[in-house]
């Protein structure tokens, strides 16, 4: 496991927030805005703004504010203003719309710290470059420990930042399989998932929020609602570099359902003592499916993009653990 959950603020998002805030400072911008889905990017942005004494406004869908309540409080504690967005399905896409509207209106004073490898140029490449440290560390560490490159890398894909960061240094290494895991939600009907690359019921190429990529949409070109138990994967489009990797076949994309992610959360918690973010749990779910098909001598790295503290509220509702004893030590 690549432990991005151990980073300060609890997810890979801080890699990117730190990089972009340095740029904002260099450009002399005093006001920072951001969007957030799961709240991890909002918390990361609020954190770097606290560190550098910058004004911070975070846009968040009201549905996400409800389900990631703890992160809303963390952002406020860090001194950020959280603005609820209730248009559309009141999730990540709608928060990005509102952040972009703020940005174009206040662009002379404001820097937009976008949280994933999407949006208009240069965000997809800039965010990727700030997240690239994930695969740099992976490569160095696996060579130190195992003396060879891994066979498989697995990462969850919301907008795609932790996955592109985990894949990037391995792109030229043709023997390293790259697997992105999208949110399979409650099923493959449009509106029930966020599996943009699904062969049936997935997205088609289009333009959303300044990016040409796969977009979940109806046949009139209206962007579809999405669903995932994890707010961070609940988005109708996906970073354009993933679209390229999908089309070239260099990476493959699969999905895990809500139920599989919840089960994977439980399994990882109980076997490793690590409570993963629900987003990361989608990658864990794929690892659980894949591992039995691989030889004992094979190496798989799963990117644990964040920790699960933020999800305890959802987990309390979704998992019934009463009377659920898993380990007994015999006398």
């Amino acid at each position, binding site marked *: 496991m690549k432990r991005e959950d151990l980073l300060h603020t609890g997810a890979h998002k801080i890699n990117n927030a730190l990089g972009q805030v340095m740029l904002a400072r260099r450009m002399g911008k005093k006001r920072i805005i951001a969007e957030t889905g799961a709240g991890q990017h909002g918390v990361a942005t609020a954190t770097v703004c606290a560190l550098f004494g910058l004004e911070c406004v975070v846009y968040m869908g009201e549905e996400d504010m409800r389900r990631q309540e703890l992160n809303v409080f963390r952002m406020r504690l860090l001194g950020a203003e959280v603005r609820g967005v209730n248009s559309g399905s009141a999730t990540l*896409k709608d928060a990005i*719309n509102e952040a972009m509207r703020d940005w174009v209106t206040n662009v002379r004073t404001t820097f937009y710290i976008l949280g994933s490898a999407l949006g208009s140029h240069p965000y997809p490449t800039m965010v990727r470059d700030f997240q690239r440290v994930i695969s740099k560390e992976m490569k160095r560490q696996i060579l130190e420990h195992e003396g060879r490159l891994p066979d498989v890398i697995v990462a969850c894909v919301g907008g795609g930042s932790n996955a592109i960061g985990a894949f990037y240094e391995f792109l030229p290494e043709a023997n390293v399989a790259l697997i992105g895991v999208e949110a399979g939600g409650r099923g493959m009907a449009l509106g029930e998932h966020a599996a943009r690359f699904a062969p049936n019921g997935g997205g088609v190429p*289009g*333009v959303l*929020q300044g990016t040409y990529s796969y977009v979940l*949409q109806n046949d*009139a*070109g*209206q*962007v579809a609602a999405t669903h995932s138990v994890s707010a961070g994967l609940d988005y109708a489009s996906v970073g354009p570099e993933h679209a390229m990797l999908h089309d070239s076949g260099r990476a493959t994309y699969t999905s895990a359902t809500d139920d599989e992610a919840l089960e994977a959360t439980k399994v990882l918690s109980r076997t490793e003592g690590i409570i993963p973010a629900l987003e990361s749990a989608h990658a864990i779910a794929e690892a659980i499916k894949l591992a039995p098909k691989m030889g004992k001598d094979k190496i798989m790295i799963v990117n644990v993009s964040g920790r699960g503290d933020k999800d305890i509220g959802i987990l309390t509702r979704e998992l019934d653990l009463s009377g659920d004893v898993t380990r007994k030590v015999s006398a």
Partner: protein
Amino acid sequence: MAINFSKKPGLVIYFTAGDPDLETTREMALAAIDHGADVIELGVPFSDPLADGPVIQRASERAVAKGTRLADVLVICKEIRAARPEAGIILFSYLNPVMRFGMEAFAKAAKDAGADGVLLTDMIVEEAEEYLKLMHANGLAPVFLAAPTSPDARLKAIAENSQGFVYAISRVGITGTQTELASDAKGLVERIRKFTKLPIALGFGVSTPEHVRAVVEFADAAVVGSAIVALIEKTPAEEAPRAVGEFVRSLCGGVKTA
């Protein structure tokens, strides 16, 4: 059928098609033309109107909820063209519905529907090669947006690749009504003039007859969108065409002069 601002003041009127319904949009467009609009912008409603403020967002949401499609907007475009052969008509859309329709199929259908030109908000001039070819092949005028933050090199590219007119954005930001006209506006129009002899229309925030009068002092036309859409929002459908006609007449200051 042409884009022509020779009568003063030049006026472009925007509608979100399908709000409150397609038939009313058509009747409102005809009323606007009859009361002084030189060009009608027929807006295809989109689920994620990034460049729009709350007024047009709400209108888009209503029109999308009614199931309004690009194909429907093309139908009323054709009807408006048949009824008013001299009026200028621009199809206005975000890129995604057009890409889903198919860019080439769209260009042909727009021509067939009698449109004079096309404005795609999120089509940037730097990525427009294919689009421009299709516009030219079908005799449609591509209209690009120019912002106060655009550097001269970008304004030049926008001006050189636009036809019909250049759409100057009066301020940094999104669409919406406002009480005072931005001070950025005049400077932008002057900067664009260095690069083109095309008429320049100024929009975003142009809301009142006073604004229109002030705009046409330095630009060739004013674009009024959110103020029209807000009026439609608060007017019952059956009264909307008459209300729009009256408002457009007031925007022109009563009569247009040659």
